């Protein structure tokens, strides 16, 4: 199989699909080919844990309606044989595992992240160690969990699973597996769970809530080596010298940008691919969007990838518009992390800078109220980050404060002690926020003729 297309999109998830939509907004005619190594239509990747929990189904997990690809005339080559293994920017050519060659005019790399396998002795030798990134992996884990529980109950003992890594993926996997195995333990090398999105105090509150649901979190502990019998991991020897028997392991210590393809083709790489404001890489006619791109942090100015779904969608839109040469194509400037995640009945929303350094001129306001824990981080009179554990109401108003760098002294201070409201903004700003596109022939009272 060979193809020659106007637009080649490598990666069939958030960024790739968003880019395809953006291309189609401007260019209705150009041929678009989406290639992806997973044999599925695009699905909500973070939904895999929800799928295992039964909060969605294999019918509903798909990101777009069934006719999406046809309606937008997006050709798709999906499956492991279509994994692109080599990119030749000079020749405008990509080559897949199966040998297929694709000639393109413009190419988008939207290959996301790949799980990082920690160098723990034994981990690589065991067949029952699973990552938890893709739909197929999730279904495999589910199958493994069911089988393990059946076996364990046959042997009159509880089934046990160890999750290595208490990041968002590890904890969501743990939550999902709760319904399939009897005991779930989560190991975390860092001194607290969710080290990237929570602080010490919040982590403790959440850890207690997870414990009440039967998930044992062990921060500050990880596996030193894995005991393997007949090709299967049977126990983890932990760094605190304890031994934890297990039926299988989920490895979720982290992800790294899946940028090998571009790097091998000579692209500039920092902590992710280096791109211009329209997300064009240093390679000719190659753009990138999603987890593999390094972006400027809106709060501290640092460069790092932002492996988050909304960021990938936004970046896909920017890259797609640029690729199709849309008039007034938007630029992608800086960004900051906004995370929304829920565990059982707990909700956790975080954004921006949540663990400020002591010397950066930050002020912090925290509040604990029962199951709720909130933290606000301010700098130079502006909100720069928040943690909202079990107090989610209207959180987007805080996000907007960060994004628009709204001076806090304009606002009703009460908005940081209870759910924020639109009325907390001063009247002119409130009007401007809520009345975008308001008909100009009416006044602020809604009257057509002034009085």
């Amino acid at each position, binding site marked *: 199989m060979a193809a020659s297309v106007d637009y080649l999109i490598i990666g069939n998830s958030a960024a790739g699909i968003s880019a395809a939509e953006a291309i189609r907004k401007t260019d209705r005619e150009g041929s678009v080919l989406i290639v992806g190594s997973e044999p599925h239509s695009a699905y909500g990747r973070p939904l895999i844990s929800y799928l295992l929990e039964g909060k969605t189904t294999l019918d509903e997990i798909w990101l777009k309606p069934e006719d999406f690809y046809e309606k937008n005339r997006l050709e798709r080559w999906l499956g492991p044989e279509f994994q692109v293994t080599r990119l030749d920017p000079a020749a405008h050519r990509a080559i897949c595992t199966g040998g297929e060659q694709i000639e393109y005019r413009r190419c988008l790399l939207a290959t996301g992240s790949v799980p990082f396998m920690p160098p723990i002795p034994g981990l690589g030798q065991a067949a029952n160690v699973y990552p938890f990134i893709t739909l197929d992996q999730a279904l495999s884990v589910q199958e493994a969990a069911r089988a393990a529980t059946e076996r364990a109950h046959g042997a009159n003992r509880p089934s046990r699973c160890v999750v290595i890594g208490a990041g968002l993926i590890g904890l969501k996997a743990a939550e999902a597996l709760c319904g399939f195995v009897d005991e779930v333990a989560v190991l975390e090398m860092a001194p607290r769970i969710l080290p990237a999105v929570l602080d010490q105090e919040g982590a403790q509150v959440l850890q207690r809530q997870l414990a009440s649901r039967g998930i044992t979190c062990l921060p500050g502990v990880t596996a030193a080596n894995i005991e393997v019998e007949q090709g299967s991991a049977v126990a983890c020897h932990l760094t605190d010298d304890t031994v934890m028997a297990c039926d299988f392991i989920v490895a979720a210590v982290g992800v790294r940008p899946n940028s090998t393809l571009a790097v091998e083709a000579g692209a500039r790489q920092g902590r992710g691919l280096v791109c211009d404001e329209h997300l064009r890489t240093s390679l000719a006619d190659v753009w990138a969007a999603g987890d593999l791109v390094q972006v400027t942090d809106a709060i501290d100015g640092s460069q790092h990838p932002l492996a988050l779904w909304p960021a990938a969608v936004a970046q896909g839109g920017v890259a797609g518009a640029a690729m199709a040469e849309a008039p007034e194509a938007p630029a992608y400037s800086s960004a900051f992390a906004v995370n929304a995640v829920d565990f059982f009945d707990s909700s956790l929303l975080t954004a921006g800078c949540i663990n400020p350094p002591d010397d950066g001129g930050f002020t912090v306001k925290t509040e604990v109220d029962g199951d709720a824990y909130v933290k606000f981080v301010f700098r130079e009179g502006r909100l720069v980050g928040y943690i909202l554990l079990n107090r989610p109401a209207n959180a*987007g108003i805080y996000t907007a404060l960060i994004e628009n760098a709204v001076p806090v002294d304009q606002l009703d201070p009460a908005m940081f002690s209870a759910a924020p409201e639109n009325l907390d903004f001063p009247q002119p700003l409130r009007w401007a926020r809520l009345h975008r596109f308001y008909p100009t022939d*009416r006044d602020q009272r809604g009257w057509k003729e002034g009085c």
Partner: protein
Amino acid sequence: MKRIYALEDWCIDCKRCEVACKVFHSKSKDPVKAFLFEQPRPRNRVRVEGNRTLSIAINCRHCPAPKCVEGCISGAMTRNPETGVVTSNPEKCVGCRTCVSLCPFGAVTIEEGPRHPIAFKCDLCGEVPGVPGSPSCVAACPNRALIYVESEGN
């Protein structure tokens, strides 16, 4: 597109809009059944902020580039490109609250759904998702503090 605008000059904090919204979005469309008998309780998607001194009804602004849609991990939140109406598909929503963390107006809430908590937001009272209907909050407002008018943007 036609948008609902709230006018705080006239909002009197009666919350009839909330009642009408709940009733429209109930199974029975009958206030007594909706409030007292239906399970799960129907939810209002318009929310009155403030008190008698100053109040305003808040509902979805149906942004042209909605952050809730951009952030939705399940594809439940969509914007109809023809009508501009932003709706959440209750079948697809998993209740992750990404939309809550992104909506600049607090116009999306996560509440108990038929099976698990899901997102609720203004759908302009369309019978078909994405197609605007005749907003019941506007009809219920006794003081024209909510108007449904052609806006100058899509």
